């Protein structure tokens, strides 16, 4: 099982012939991920170390049976690549690209919702189900196959926590980097729902950050979960986030501070670590003790 990606995942990489796309797609393939196609308009017919390149995602899907899109194209073209992937009928779009305008993201989300396609990101490190499939830029070597689910807005902080877990011998079912942009395909709560339903996941680490009210909304769901959750929130000392004007405060109904978020998680029954090391320790206590 695992969530989002597994051994059945067949990836088409938009931007495969670019520097980053090529580097990470080949790394993903080396990990065992089925990277079956690439898309670069005008380069159809070429290949990247044996991975065939197509002019459109539709063509790639038709020819290779790809069911998941991995997007590495630059910001001005990334939204179009996500829309194209959804239109081509993949089940999941993982968008790594950083710097996409929020309007594009909002439009992409609306279209994906309509077509029933799920999205992770944009501006995210990707998703890995250790031992099964790695999509994106996460360093797989720090992961270990196991039963802890992990969801985080941030990339390197995810690595740090995964590292702590692995050092305690705690493997992961799936690690999901959801990204930190204004409109992302999956929020903490969406991923938590999937972990709750995933028979391979026994406990969950949720990593939050200052800003927005997603952690608070996730906390509401954690109250109803049967699986234990260890939380971590970064940003107690961080400079105040970008001001969204008066409108923002009204929408979120949250102060958006790290303290408020940590408090909400604890009130929902999650153990909350003060730093990544403590998160590893708390999870070890939970699972092993």
């Amino acid at each position, binding site marked *: 099982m695992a969530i989002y990606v597994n051994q059945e995942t067949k990836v088409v990489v938009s931007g495969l012939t670019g520097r*980053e796309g090529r580097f*990470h797609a080949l790394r993903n393939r080396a990990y065992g991920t089925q990277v079956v196609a690439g898309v670069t308009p005008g380069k159809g017919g070429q290949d990247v170390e044996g991975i065939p390149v197509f002019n459109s995602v539709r063509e790639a899907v038709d020819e290779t049976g790809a069911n998941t899109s991995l997007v590495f194209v630059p*910001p*001005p073209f990334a939204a179009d690549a996500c829309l194209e992937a959804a239109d081509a009928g993949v089940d999941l779009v993982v968008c790594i690209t*950083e*710097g*996409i*305008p*929020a*309007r594009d993201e*909002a*439009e992409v*989300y*609306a*279209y994906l919702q*309509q077509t029933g396609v799920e999205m992770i990101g944009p501006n995210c490190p990707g998703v890995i189900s250790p031992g099964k499939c790695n999509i994106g830029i*996460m*360093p797989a*070597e720090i992961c270990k196959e196991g039963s802890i689910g992990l969801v*985080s*807005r*941030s*990339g*390197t*902080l*995810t*690595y*740090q926590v995964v*590292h702590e877990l692995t050092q305690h011998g705690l493997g992961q079912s799936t690690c999901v980097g959801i990204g*930190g942009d*204004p*409109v992302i395909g999956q929020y903490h709560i969406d991923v938590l729902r999937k972990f709750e339903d995933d028979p391979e996941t026994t406990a969950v680490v949720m*990593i939050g*950050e*200052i800003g*927005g*009210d*997603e952690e608070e*909304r996730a906390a509401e769901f954690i109250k109803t979960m049967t699986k234990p959750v260890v939380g971590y929130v*970064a*940003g*107690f*000392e*961080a*400079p105040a986030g970008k*001001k*969204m*004007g*008066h*409108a*923002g*405060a*009204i*929408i*979120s109904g949250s102060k958006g501070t*790290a303290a408020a978020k940590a408090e909400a998680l604890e009130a929902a029954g999650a153990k909350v670590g*003060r*730093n*990544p*090391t403590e998160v590893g320790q708390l999870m070890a206590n939970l699972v092993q003790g």
Partner: protein
Amino acid sequence: MDLLEYQGKQLLGSVGVPTPAGEAAETSDEAEAAATRIGCPVAVKAQVQVGGRGKAGGIKVAQTPAQARAAAEAIIGMDIKGHHVHRVWLEPAADIASEYYASFTLDRSAKKYLGMVSAEGGVEIETVAAESPEKIALVHIDPLLGLRNFHVRRLLFGGGIPKEQHKPMANVLTKLYQAFVELDAELVEVNPLVVTASGEIVALDAKVSLDDNAEYRHKETFTAFHEIFATDPQEKIAKEKGLNYVKLQGNVGIIGNGAGLVMSTLDVVAQAGGKAANFLDVGGGANAELMANALELVSGDPQVKSIFVNIFGGITRGELVAQGIVDALKSVDIRQPIVVRLDGTNAEEGRRILADNPNENLHSSPTMLDAANMAVQLGA
């Protein structure tokens, strides 16, 4: 990018939202001349990227050009919530009959645009929201559907706008929405949106925030408005070098990769009893040059007593980070002790490079917590 009031009004005016004509001034001379041209009474308004100007004394009405000069003299140079007032905006003082509130923004939770209208304008909308939320119409707009007539009707009826104002207000709302979308704004807020004694609708104040990610679509706008803002000199250097840097008040310089990890590093430093001097994210894929630049920038801050480099490699490769540190130590005169913690992609290779280039100021630590403790102690 948060625009100043008058910049926001200029943009709104360019799509047809009615805004008062006026002039900006940076000196009292300029203000007096502007007041003469505009005609009195004029409003003299501090231009700062923060709310609450009025209460802080940043808005004055002048009956004569001489009064306008005096007002400008009082306002320019003021500090409003930590924002220095560099310029004022002068415009005809409005004869207000009623004040409304109108805004469009992105609701991250709903993943939709959000329009808000209230007949209770002119006061802080948070106050209205807290005391009488039923007086604010909140209407979500699907980004692909766009603003439709039914949304506008819900905003007008729900916000309590009098019926005789529906037609002109609908027109203004449509244009505000158009501005919000076409400018790639994060927020377009007009408060107050006034009806004057003669029945005209005018956007008397405006708060417009533009999406920095959309800068490539609005080069001219960004260029025109960027130069206005005085920035911390170190933040300016950071921006030029592609570093995500924010100055803070402590003495432990921080360099890390990824905003989340850097935020976590600040927290860990605090837990170790220290205080970060800055936030610096070198981002994904940092190379030797970027690392050297980062070290140069942070070490150049006189407040910094020690530096904590916390890298967890993903795209970023440990050997390049190490090489950048070694390069920086050779080319830049760094006096502060540096504690390096390297993990992830090619970390071992990086550690070997550091070990091969010993320097009395360079310390390594295997874990984030130990490194934080060491950096705090060295900076004490």
